[in-house]
């Protein structure tokens, strides 16, 4: 539904996004992660047709954005970072304007407006002027606008920013429901959101796409944070030697705890049954107080990718 082929965007000599390629399929919600200034918004704007890429090709719902912009625009709902609202209009007038431009026929207008108003819980404010609305409502009017005309593709730039926890929950439900039949690209700062509703995650930094995979896949691929933590009643050095001898353990760091305990953090290879082997080894000589596998959180994965790429950029610059 969304397809990017080596898309780059430069302003003068400044490269905002560099050679980005990925696809979002029908029935898929892809999370778009990256620190501020990573190029998320520019990528979204390029896909939406708000700006044209310097090179590369974007297709939306099978239509080339460069040559069939209008057909693509009819199948696309876009919520920019700042909801694009006309403050002096009331909510209904605003939504009717967008629906008209999107080609919703007059006979279907009432039903279509009711549909998005219900989906985004806007019933209470439909007659109110937009400048009077709270930030949460403004955000949701923006989302309602994107949903109008039954698009195939939704581009959402931080759709839950400025919402309270209840509203975030409701908005996620709207996105999840849409994602069952449409394609969604969702940029966000909130990592749990990604694990909750996204099938795949794209991580971007410095204008480059660093990784794209399912949240679980990304976690498994991240060895550094794959570790086993244990506490045992033992002396530090013999324990370290013993652990290093265990098959699957690649590194150990030991710290002494109060009360004759030591805490060891073992770097282990992903996916092996290494915890059981460690437990056996320790149980023969010492008392084992705690043993736990540390699953890498998406947060760690994200930080690892981003800090690595930032370091690489600095090296390049130097």
């Amino acid at each position: 539904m969304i397809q990017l082929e080596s898309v780059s965007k430069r302003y003068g000599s400044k490269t905002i996004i560099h050679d980005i390629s990925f696809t979002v399929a029908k029935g898929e919600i892809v999370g778009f992660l990256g620190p501020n200034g990573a190029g998320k918004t520019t990528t979204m704007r390029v896909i939406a047709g708000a700006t044209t890429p310097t090179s590369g090709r974007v297709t939306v719902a099978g239509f080339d954005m460069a040559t069939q912009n209008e057909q693509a625009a009819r199948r696309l709902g876009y919520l920019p970072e700042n909801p694009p609202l006309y403050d002096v209009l009331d909510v209904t007038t605003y939504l009717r304007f967008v629906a008209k431009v999107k080609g919703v026929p007059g006979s279907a207008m009432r039903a279509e407006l009711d549909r998005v108003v219900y989906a985004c819980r806007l019933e209470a404010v439909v007659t109110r002027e937009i400048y009077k609305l709270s930030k949460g409502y403004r955000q949701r009017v923006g989302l309602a606008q994107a949903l109008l005309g039954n698009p195939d593709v939704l581009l959402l730039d931080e759709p839950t920013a400025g919402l309270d926890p209840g509203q975030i929950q409701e908005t996620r439900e709207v996105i999840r429901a849409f994602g069952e039949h449409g394609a969604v690209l969702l940029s966000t700062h909130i990592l749990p959101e990604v694990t909750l509703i996204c099938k795949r995650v794209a991580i971007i930094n410095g204008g480059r796409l660093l990784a794209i995979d399912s949240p679980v896949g990304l976690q498994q691929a991240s060895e550094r944070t794959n570790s086993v933590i244990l506490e045992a009643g033992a002396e530090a050095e013999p324990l370290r030697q013993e652990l290093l001898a265990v098959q699957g353990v690649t590194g150990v760091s030991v710290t002494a705890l109060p009360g004759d305990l030591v805490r060891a953090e073992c770097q282990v290879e992903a996916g092996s049954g290494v915890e059981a082997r460690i437990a056996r080894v320790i149980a023969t000589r010492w008392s084992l107080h705690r043993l736990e596998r540390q699953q890498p959180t998406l947060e760690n994965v994200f930080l690892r990718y981003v800090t690595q790429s930032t370091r690489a950029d600095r090296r390049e610059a130097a």
Partner: protein
Amino acid sequence: MNGTLAIYRKELIQYFRSPIAYFVLAVFLLGTGYFFLYNIFSTGIGTMDETFRNMGILLITLTPLITMRLFCGEYTGRTMELLMTLPLRPWEIVLGKYLGAVTIFLLMTAATGINLVPLYLFGNPETKTILSGYIGFVLMGMACLAVGQFFSSLTHNQIVAALITIPVLLGFWFIGHLQAYQNTPAMRELFGYLSFSLHFSDFIRGLLRSEAAAFYLVVVAIALTLNTSYLQWRR
């Protein structure tokens, strides 16, 4: 065309929900009424000639108030992002906005018709001349609005847009006065041809010249084309 119509309606709603439309209308009517009375009483002749000329200058100073928000408002309200990603072609946006501005201007112009009531009650004006004056006024206004709309698309700042529009329009208005200082006939002709006021004078005198009408329409076409190309380029 559907898009043009939707933009047009949105523009009208926005005009009438902001105080500017009422302010412009009020100032324009007060000014026109004042000039009308002043001209009648100072000359004692029941014509609109001088009043039309004054209305022309008044229009030039008020045009930016109508046009400055057309695109600047979309930029600062971040709604340009919406317009550029909706299934709209740039010319549909330009035309919808322009027609909205022209509609406001036509309403303003129609309201000045109130001055004609005493003119017809107590005088014996030439209907043909007045009609031709109004046609000229509307054509010139359309040209001013197109120029103002183009400048509004160039900047995010409404004040800047207004501050560019006024001198440019005044230049077009007064350029005819520079005719006398030109040495070559070609330059005299050029300055005369570019003058908003000289073409308007023909209409005021009751001369419906197609070249004069064509001149204003060409200005409209050039300004709106530039406006459209600029939006395309900006993307």
